[in-house]
């Protein structure tokens, strides 16, 4: 291999690497921000704390549930809930509940949730001392 070829190849290689860096550096926003890219699903739920009705929840997925102030549903008074406890996700016109490795666990109709599980109308979700009763799921598709 002669010198001219090596020299040209080196410059071309640097150009190719620059192209790769440029492409790989353009992180697609939707690839990381947010948790779910499924179509948003309308969720209406009632929130109970120690069996007392607290409030009505009306929102679109993804809904992050937890004690932290930046959650979509803040369980501020619930000391048994984790800061990021669980998430309601819309996925292919179905609603899913995902436990975010919470300390005290998430329960769907009394059964502990491992990973992600489908939620239907009338289901009851328990996190900490809070209970969510899913009143209505509005499918957009």
């Amino acid at each position, binding site marked *: *291999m002669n*010198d001219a070829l*090596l*020299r*040209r*190849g*080196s*410059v071309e*290689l*640097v150009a*190719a*690497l*620059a192209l*790769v*860096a440029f492409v*790989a*550096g353009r*992180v697609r926003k939707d*690839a*990381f*921000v*947010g*948790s*779910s*890219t*499924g*179509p948003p699903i309308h969720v209406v739920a009632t929130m109970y704390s120690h069996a007392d009705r607290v409030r009505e929840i009306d929102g679109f997925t993804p809904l*992050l549930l937890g004690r932290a102030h930046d959650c979509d549903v803040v369980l501020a008074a619930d000391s048994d809930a984790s*800061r*990021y406890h669980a*998430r309601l*996700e*819309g*996925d*292919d*016109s179905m609603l*899913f509940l*995902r436990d*975010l*490795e919470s300390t005290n666990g998430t329960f769907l109709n009394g059964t502990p949730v491992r990973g*992600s599980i489908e939620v239907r109308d009338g289901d009851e979700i328990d996190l900490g001392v809070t209970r969510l009763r899913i009143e209505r799921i509005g499918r957009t598709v």
Partner: protein
Amino acid sequence: MTNALPVIARRLVPMLIALALDAWMFSFAPVHAIGPSWMLLLLAALACFWVLWQPAGMRRDDFLPALAVLLSGLGVMLVARLSPHLAQRQLVWLLVSLVLAISAGPFFSTIRRLAAVKYIWVILSLIFFGLLVLFGREVNGAKLWIVLGPVRYEPVEIIKLCIVFFLAAYLSETGDVIAMTRPWSIRENAKYLGPLLLGWLPALIILILQHDIGMAALLLAVFASMLYAATRRIDLVLGGLCVFALCAWFALHHYGYVQTRVSVWLHPFADPLGRGYQSAQAYFSLAAGGLFGTGYRLGHPEFIPNVANDYVYAAFSEEFGALGGLVLLWLFGVLAFRMFAVAVAQPDLFAKLLALGMGATLAFQTVVITGGVVGLFPLTGITLPFVSYGGSSLLANFLLVALVWAISARPMTWSRESSASSS
């Protein structure tokens, strides 16, 4: 579903591009310096298997393993040009790293369950230090290597990862409490920062006793950035900087080799044929490269002693030019940036801090060594991740990327492109 093919293609495309670029690089290498060809095919197959073997229904940032493979291929190309013998060893280490990264995959996928066990990482790193004290061998004035027959391993690289694990586990539990503590309350601060320092200071002390200032500085920087991310308390970062300044001052006055490094950094041409020889040759090498470089295999980076480990950035810069050097840094920046993007997207603090700490480790390590090579800081003997010759570093960095890649998993959902391809 008809989605299966696009999913596989999407997972594989970044890796295939990286492998194609690697193959192109290797075609410039000296004949028979890289090989045998079955070894390269095996490595390529493993790399493809690595990105394909991930849990179904999840989507990960597949650029991370691809960038790791691209950069390590670049490293093999550079090392092959400097020493074909070392390139053979580097390929074997690459094989070991890939196999370990693949086999650690299932463990990394369930890493969030380990948020509660934090002291196991301290114990693990102390075990490594113990092995180092018992079986360590001193090389270049620093006792860093465990030698087992033909295999030499530098456990500090793995300890580095253990410490990030510990910090992530501890800070994810106590970060909000530390954040609310008033800076002037000694008792409150001691309560929560105490265990943190207890878990972390021994590592630092032993590092200094082992004469590895570069790694100690790296760990302090990672520590400060994780602490800030978890608590947003700037006073703790400033405190960390003061600790580092004290350590540096102590090392400067008590360790002759640190003194040498600093005086070589300040006056590289005071003793150009003696102590300053290495860094003076590196500056000549950078100057010879100019903006566009001499071209691969047309420069003389082999004049720099120990070039494949510490000065690989100078070797690259000489033959591919200052522009090539900047592009290499750009690639590292992209890799770190994608890791930070993974951290930002995590809902739980443990995974967030873990991804952030790993990204910061990679970024700071790159900055510390390239800064040392170009004369921004005194040179410290840490490696340029993936590119430098050295199995310990290669292995640890592949595990690091595999971990962040596993963290980046999120449920694959009904998205536009998959609906378009299925209809």
